């Protein structure tokens, strides 16, 4: 544990200039839930820690039928879980938040921290991916937008340059007749990180029409969270049946090359990808045809599936 100096930024611009002034050995913290654990373990050793929690306006969550959902980087996982529009229009995101650690961590952990930490198992990431989210990044030279599926470059690695901040996540309005779901498989339920996490979204062309859009995102089975493109392609344009959903789930399973680690073997992870892809697709399809379940019903299917 190396001692560090502690700084606070009140504006995005101030945070950026602090990062520039103190160079590569300075780091941002938001909720500090990843930071303090890594620092105590001696893995992260910054000289300067720049807390951005007091930057005004960055914890807002807003929804409008025109602009969709805008989640400030400092919004906590708990605030996302409890937000009425998130529960209503982005159920996969609400249940992903509910499957994330205990309440005491969710009240601290931010969505920006979850994304920038770039863990392959980050629970918010698959759910944000299936809705086509985009990241707003601000640096000394202005701002840029990067699609979330282009944001990650490896475990713990992102497109962020030193001196840049993630300030907002933008999530488009889902099409009509859309359903979505997330399931986290972990031996200890919400209290451990995911062995595998799967989010699926299905949009239908009319309530009983063919599949207009299918998105499947997988966590903890590759160096970054990934989309299951071939499985998605197999569904678009089709009149969905149980057999098609199973075939898509098998494609997702056969397409992944996970690793063995303490939480599961590669073979086990592959099987789980198949099972969870099928279950999340079924749930998303049902919600697209018959409307969503209540939050508590969905949460039971998300967290309990883990035990």
């Amino acid at each position, binding site marked *: 544990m190396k001692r560090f100096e502690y700084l606070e930024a009140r504006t995005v611009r101030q945070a950026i200039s602090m990062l520039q002034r103190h160079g590569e050995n300075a780091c941002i913290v938001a909720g500090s839930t990843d930071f303090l654990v890594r620092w105590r373990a001696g893995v992260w050793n910054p000289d300067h820690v720049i807390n951005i929690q007091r930057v005004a306006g960055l914890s807002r969550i807003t929804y409008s039928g025109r602009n969709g959902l805008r989640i400030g980087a400092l919004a906590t996982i708990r605030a996302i879980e409890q937000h009425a529009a998130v529960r209503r229009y982005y159920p996969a995101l609400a249940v992903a938040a509910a499957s994330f650690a205990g309440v005491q*961590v969710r009240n601290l952990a931010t969505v920006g921290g979850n994304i920038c930490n770039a863990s392959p198992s980050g629970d918010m990431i698959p759910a944000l991916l299936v809705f086509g989210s985009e990241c707003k990044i601000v640096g000394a030279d202005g701002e840029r937008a990067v699609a979330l599926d282009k944001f990650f470059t490896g475990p713990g690695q992102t497109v962020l340059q030193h001196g840049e901040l993630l300030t907002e996540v933008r999530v488009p309005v889902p099409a009509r007749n859309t359903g979505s779901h997330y399931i986290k498989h972990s031996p200890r339920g919400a209290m451990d990180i995911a062995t595998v996490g799967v989010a699926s979204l299905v949009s239908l062309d009319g309530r009983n029409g063919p599949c207009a859009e299918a998105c499947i995102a997988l966590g903890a089975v590759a160096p970054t969270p990934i989309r299951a493109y071939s499985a998605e392609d197999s569904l678009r344009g089709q009149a969905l049946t149980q057999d098609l959903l199973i075939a898509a789930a098998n494609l997702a399973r056969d397409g992944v090359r996970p690793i063995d680690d303490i939480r599961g073997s590669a073979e086990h992870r592959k099987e789980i990808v198949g099972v969870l892809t099928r279950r999340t697709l079924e749930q998303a399809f049902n919600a697209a045809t018959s409307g969503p379940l209540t939050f508590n019903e969905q949460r039971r299917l998300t*967290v309990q599936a883990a035990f």
Partner: protein
Amino acid sequence: MKKQLQITVNGELRQALVEPYYSLLDTLRDEMQLTGTKKGCDEGDCGACTVLLNGKPVCSCLVLAHAAHDAEVITIEGVANGQELHPVQKAFVEHGGLQCGYCTPGIILSTVGFLESGEEPSEENIKHALGGNLCRCTGYTKVIESVLVAVKATNQESEE
């Protein structure tokens, strides 16, 4: 370099000179002598260090002390009203919601935070609210029973 900070702890404005890397947990225990808040794991897993930060349950081991500057914190020392135990504390004492007691301050604060959040106090929601508090002794059955008793007591109080 140590810096001055101020935190309203249990309704009282407290000041301390604290290292930049200190946690809120270490500040409460070592600088303010409030040792009711426990350190189990120091990495967010056990919930023994739970306090209310601006009304919400958090793991105080995951909060940088200076990040809590100007905040309001409630610890287990501030839950009772003088000699009168809080209904949640009473329920745990009377219904065997604790054995060794190490996890208890954290569980009480999570429960108080949950009951004040306005969420429907169903057994299912209680279990989700306490998922971040580990207990090695009770097996949780008595813990959940005690919370349910506290819910009833609180409802009766508000009806009277």
